[in-house]
Structure formats: structure tokens, C-alpha cells
């Protein structure tokens, strides 16, 4: 089976799948070309969410699962219950909500689906769907800070020049830090990308967030003397990887991108304060 056009596709474009059968199939009641994506996500094998005191526990650890999510189909025309040998084509339009190809969460495929008595042949072809820039561009995004009880003495603000970036773009912005407690140590400011994989399966127990940080991180300020109540602004520049998996929300998991800023106080006992701002990453 082959797919045309042989290039990355945008949502709402049409895919034409060409199927070549070596021999005729009889007793066929239905034959279709189906498009959809293989959604690979992490789940917890035996998640016990009975206890609400210590949070969910897991006896078995995490595993990967892959589920098929259909996104449309188109019938193959045949007559007399016999699918003749040779080539058959069908065109299916990608729905507007199609999540783009995003490694490792989403991989698109066109598949043959035949209903007949006896063995059904299998055929599939992979293709790529890109994520276009959001329209309209987002004007607000989430800023998360103060997640840790022990390192929560700085009020952050992270401002980026845009909220949507194409993979490979340079993210420029400013971190504003305002300590809320007296400061006695010098500090280092770092930025990096944080790409969490959020698991939200339909049936299986969800796993905790799978974290990924871009490496190496970028140090934007060294030997910084912060002062209580004084806002320090630090400009930063970060380059998105050219092959970055774009932001997607699939059925069973999501891929998100955040800019994460960390302030590390000097010394062995220096706290690591962090905050993050969500951005949208597209690749078309």
C-alpha cells in the first residue's frame, strides 16, 4: 500500500491510498481504507488510587501501550462480493482536529480494513501530519511556580516574545525574579525546555507525567546578587530543536512544551527555585 502525496500533510488535506492486491478476495462484505494514528502512551500497570493520604501507589511500574485512534475512512468500490486483484484507490480527508505526528505519541497510518469470511489481509502505509501554527495565535498561557514547599522564596514571571514557535526557532524572553525572603547567597539563573508527556488514557490507569528536559541547559546569569523585594530582569535566548516533537493533544496522552527557569543559590544547601511558562510548538 502506498500513500499520495508523499510529503508531510496538513490537517484538512486529503490522503489518497493506493492498494495493490496480488490475488482477488471473495466473500467480501465491506472494504475500506481507514486513516488514523497509533497513539503510544505510558500507563501504570497496577495503579492503586484508593489511598488519598499518600497519593496513588503502584505495584507494577509503568509500561508503554499503543492504541489505534481512527480519524475517518473511505469505501473501496467493488462488485459482486469480490475484491479484484490489482490496484484500488481511496481518498480520505484528514479531519481539522488531527493531532500532528509527534514522536513518541502520535504516528499516522492508512490501513486496509476488509470484512469477509476467512482470513483478512493486512496492509498499512505510514505518513506524516504536521502541526500548523495555531490560528488565532494564543494570547495567554500557563505560568506555574511555587510547586515545591522547600524552595518557594522567589516570585517569578517569565515573558516570551511569542507564545507559539516553530521547531528550530529561537525563543527570546525575560525572566523577572523577586525574592520574597532575605537573600544571603549569590545565585545562578538557568533556562531550559521542559517537555512533559501527560498520560490521560481512556481505559488504562494513567501514569504520572513523563518529564524531559533539554540538555545542556543555558546559563543566563552567574554570581547574581538578588535582594528581597527587588525585581531583577534577566533576558534569555533558547533554541528549539529542529526536530522537536510538536505540541499535541491526542486521545491517550499529550505532549506539552514549557520554558523552565531555575535560580540556583550557591553552596551545598542552596535552594533550587523553578518556574515554567507554557509555549506552543508547531512544525509547519
Amino acid at each position, binding site marked *: 500500500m502506498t500513500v499520495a502525496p508523499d510529503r508531510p500533510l496538513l490537517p484538512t488535506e486529503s490522503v489518497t491510498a493506493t492498494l495493490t492486491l496480488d490475488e482477488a478476495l471473495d466473500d467480501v462484505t465491506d472494504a475500506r481504507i481507514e486513516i488514523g494514528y497509533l497513539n503510544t502512551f505510558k500507563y501504570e500497570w497496577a495503579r492503586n488510587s484508593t489511598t*488519598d493520604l499518600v497519593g496513588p501507589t503502584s505495584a507494577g511500574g509503568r509500561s508503554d501501550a499503543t492504541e489505534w485512534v481512527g480519524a475517518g475512512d473511505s469505501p473501496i468500490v467493488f462488485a459482486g462480493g469480490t475484491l479484484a486483484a490489482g490496484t484500488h484507490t481511496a481518498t480520505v480527508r484528514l479531519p481539522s482536529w488531527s493531532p500532528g505526528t509527534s514522536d513518541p505519541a502520535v504516528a499516522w497510518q492508512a490501513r486496509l480494513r476488509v470484512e469477509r469470511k476467512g482470513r483478512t489481509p493486512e496492509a498499512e502505509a505510514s505518513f506524516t501530519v504536521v502541526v500548523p501554527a495555531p490560528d488565532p495565535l494564543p494570547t495567554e498561557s500557563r505560568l506555574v511556580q511555587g510547586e515545591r514547599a522547600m524552595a518557594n522564596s522567589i516570585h517569578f514571571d517569565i515573558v516570551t516574545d511569542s507564545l507559539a514557535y516553530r521547531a528550530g526557532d529561537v525563543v527570546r524572553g525575560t525572566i523577572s525574579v523577586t525574592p520574597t525572603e532575605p537573600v544571603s547567597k549569590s545565585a545562578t539563573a538557568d533556562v531550559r525546555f521542559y517537555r512533559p508527556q501527560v498520560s490521560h488514557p481512556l481505559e488504562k490507569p*494513567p501514569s504520572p507525567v513523563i518529564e524531559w528536559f533539554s540538555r545542556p541547559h543555558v546559563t543566563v546569569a552567574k554570581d547574581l546578587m538578588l535582594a528581597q523585594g527587588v525585581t531583577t530582569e534577566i533576558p534569555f535566548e533558547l533554541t528549539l530543536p529542529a526536530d522537536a516533537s510538536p505540541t499535541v493533544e491526542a486521545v491517550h496522552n499529550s505532549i506539552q512544551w514549557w520554558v523552565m527557569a531555575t535560580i540556583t543559590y550557591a553552596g551545598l544547601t542552596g535552594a533550587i527555585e523553578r518556574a515554567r511558562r507554557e509555549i506552543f510548538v508547531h512544525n509547519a
Partner: protein
Amino acid sequence: MSHIEPPRPERGQTGAERGPNLTSIEREVTDARTMPQKLLAAANPKNYFGMVKHYPAGTKQFLWLCLGILYPFWLLGVLVAWPVIIVLKAVGWVLFQIWWFCTGWFWKRLGGEKPSKERRAEIDQERAAKLADSNAQQYE
């Protein structure tokens, strides 16, 4: 031009969105206050077999088999635990009474707070006098 496209499939829920998964009977156990209530809940087969309810199919049935074999011994353990807990609670009550008595005794004699240097010297003197007195009485 409008197209008829399949509806967007619903996404699932994260662990935080799902929240704790408690059955009504488990809620009863967490709300239980008295000891007999807790022990009766522990002996309840629904709770006992429900402790492996989050395991996947297959594994869960195997664990049910194992738990079923152990259930009579579990009931025996609950029965033994009942008097043991009563005895332990009684011992704890007695220890508390002793400790509470000592606390009151010291509180009364020391005036409810750490005595000053002068008061401590006074107490020491009183104690020494008492001791000398009793010694004198002994040798009479």
C-alpha cells in the same frame, strides 16, 4: 466549502482529574472510628478481596485465589487481634495514667514553670532538711 468529518474523539483523564477511586465500603472503613468497626470492616470479604481490585484482569483473579486460600487464617488473625488490641489499649491507658499523675505531681511542686535560681536553691534546701530530718529520725 464545508466537509462532514468524524467528530473529535474524547480524550481520557489524568490521574489528578480522576481523583481517588474509593468504593462506598472503603469510604466506610476510612470513616470508621471505633476499633470493633475497623476490625469488622477488615473481616468483610468485600474489603479483603478488594485490596487487589486495581490489578489487571488475570493477575487479579490469581490474587483472589491466593487471598481466598488465606481468608480463614485472616479471619483467625482478626479474632486474635481483637483481645490483643484490647490488652494493648489497657496497657497504654495505665501508662498514660501514670505519666499524667507524674506530670500533675511535678506541676504542683514546681509551680507550673521552670523555677528561678533562688526557688531551686530553696527547694534543694528543703529537700536537704527533710533528708537530714529523716536520717536523724532513723538513728534515734
